[in-house]
């Protein structure tokens, strides 16, 4: 009953200043709408990028390197001793992960883990008197399918054909374009040591990433071992784990177990992930500024109403309304503007998202047009709405307090 009368007075006064009320409500609505759109684009693209990072490459890559240089045995034997050795030479060792077969077997036994020994290196692909430098990945097609998204990006042929064809390679669409190399053509692959082999194109992929499309080729690991003259050697173990978020922790465990440098996708992309934080700060500052401006609109309308309705406030107080009741009336107005703004903002946000979803853009470095990745969740709407109501109440607070401080005698005496 009490809130009913508060509400009806609040509503009556808002409709009395209809145009201003609509304008300030629109301000809130735009703030909420843009919050939803900006936040959807931001976290959408973030999730999309992270997804790409996680899916396109193995979660963990073990390399045939060590994080710290090997110590001379004497330092290990006498850790506390004062030893001075000069002109020492680190031991030469054969590059490659020792005993990789056993490591792969052990990793593969763990649930959800896929591990693959691979050999990477450099080569030149030559066709029709043109040369293109290429990164070779000697892989196991069966496992590679699960480790990366190359299989999904195949435009012609398939990774699996590597197994049936003799001396097969899978190349990127960009390389295919540059060399005029088509399916089933025989290309010449030259290793750094000068070994030349003729290999048959059994698949063409196109990821949209220029670097990969022009410079990556896949072949069986045994073919790579022959080409690079590294028999039985693997210099990478590529690992996929059940939950990508655990990759960092698992990588640390693997590294301490076998000693080889093991990089999780988080470690490799640390800079990238840090960039998201900065980007989010910028975005939400700007959206926050919109909300602040919207709050000024609410402050303005409610201040105006308080100024113009001082007589009504005075008479309500003379009737027996308490200062709190008066304050409540104007706070209710703030809440009402906030809630209506929120509802309208949801509509605006929804329309903006629909528009954004239909936009296609070309991202630099990508060869194909893409839609904008959008995160369309309850969070965006909820948070936008929450901010609208909070900022509306905050904006109404000061004028409402002013209204509560009106001394009815001053007003009534002044009017008489």
């Amino acid at each position, binding site marked *: 009953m*009490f809130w009913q009368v508060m509400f009806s*007075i609040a509503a*009556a006064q808002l409709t009395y200043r209809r145009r201003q009320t609509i304008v300030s409500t629109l301000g809130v609505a735009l703030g909420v709408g843009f919050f939803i759109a900006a936040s959807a684009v931001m976290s959408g693209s973030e999730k999309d990028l992270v997804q790409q990072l996680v899916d396109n490459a193995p979660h963990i890559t073990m390399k045939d390197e060590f994080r710290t240089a090997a110590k001379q045995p004497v330092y290990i034997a006498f850790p506390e001793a004062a030893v001075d050795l000069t002109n020492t030479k680190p031991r030469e060792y054969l590059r490659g992960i020792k005993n990789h077969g056993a490591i792969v077997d052990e990793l593969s036994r763990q649930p959800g883990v896929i591990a693959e020994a691979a050999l990477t290196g450099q080569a030149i692909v030559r066709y029709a008197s043109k040369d293109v430098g290429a990164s070779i990945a000697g892989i196991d097609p069966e496992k590679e399918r699960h480790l990366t998204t190359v299989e999904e990006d195949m435009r012609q042929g398939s990774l699996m054909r590597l197994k049936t064809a003799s001396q097969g390679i899978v190349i990127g669409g960009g390389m295919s374009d540059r060399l005029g190399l088509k399916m089933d053509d025989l290309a010449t692959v030259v290793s750094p040591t000068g070994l030349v082999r003729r290999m048959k194109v059994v698949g063409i992929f196109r990821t949209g990433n220029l670097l990969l499309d022009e410079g990556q080729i896949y072949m069986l690991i045994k073919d790579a071992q022959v080409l690079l003259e590294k028999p039985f050697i693997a210099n990478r173990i590529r690992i996929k784990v059940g939950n990508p978020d655990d990759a960092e922790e698992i990588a640390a465990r693997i590294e301490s177990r076998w000693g080889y440098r093991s990089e999780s996708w988080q470690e490799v992309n640390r800079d990238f992930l840090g960039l998201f934080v900065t980007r989010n700060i910028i975005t939400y500052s700007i959206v926050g500024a919109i909300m602040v401006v919207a709050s000024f609109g609410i402050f303005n309308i409610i201040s105006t109403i308080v100024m113009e309705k001082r007589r009504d406030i005075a008479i309500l107080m003379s009737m027996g309304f308490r200062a709190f009741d008066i304050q409540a009336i104007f706070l209710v107005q703030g809440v009402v503007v906030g809630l209506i703004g929120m509802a309208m903002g949801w509509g605006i946000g929804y329309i903006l998202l629909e528009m954004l979803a239909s936009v296609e853009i070309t991202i630099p470095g990508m060869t194909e047009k893409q839609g904008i990745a959008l995160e369309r969740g309850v969070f965006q709407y909820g948070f936008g709405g929450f901010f609208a109501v909070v900022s509306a109440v905050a904006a109404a607070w000061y004028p409402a307090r002013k209204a509560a401080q009106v001394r009815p005698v001053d007003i*009534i005496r002044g*009017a008489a």
Partner: protein
Amino acid sequence: MSDAQPLVEARGVSRVLQEAVPVTLVKNIDLTVGHGEFVSVTGPSGSGKSSLLYLLGLLDVPTAGQVLIDGHETNGLGADRLAAIRLRKIGFVFQFHFLLPEFTVLQNVMLPMQKLGKLNDAGMKERGHALLEELEIADQAKKRPDQLSGGQRQRVAIARALANDPALILADEPTGNLDSKNSEIVQEIFAKLVREEGRTVIAVTHEPGFAEATERNINLVDGEIERDRRR
């Protein structure tokens, strides 16, 4: 509480405005008004008539002395407690009607009842209609204040003052804005409230005719009671 208990009492009440040069509105007022009295307060402008009325109605607080309502001291009560007493026991009528322009006549009359919250919605409507009936403006119930004549508006304001059935009606120049015919009507309404319903009306006026019609007249000069005359 005996019948002799005065409804409103002022004991040595003074009100000084603390400004650069302090302004004394009323000075050392002693006054007792009982149930069922019809009192007019007169005096030259600036003599403190309205100020006294606001003090008696707990709309303002004295700088010295104190006001008692139904024998209860009001000094030291917070603004909210004073508001609660106004809500139940006091009805104000001002020179200007001060009706809320966005609400209908009936809604305006119902506002104090809604604040009190004692009746349900139907009960409040019924009482509102009954009051408008009593003041012979029931046919205007659904109109807005700006669609009414000055006399009608003032009658709505009186109905609003009566909403919570207060014992004390305080009127500040209630006929100041009305023509003589409407003045008479309002005057007659007040007289009836006293005569038939036993309410107490204290009305500030500068109209000799109004003052003569009341059974008790208090004349203020320079913030002090110059004469308290009973007929």
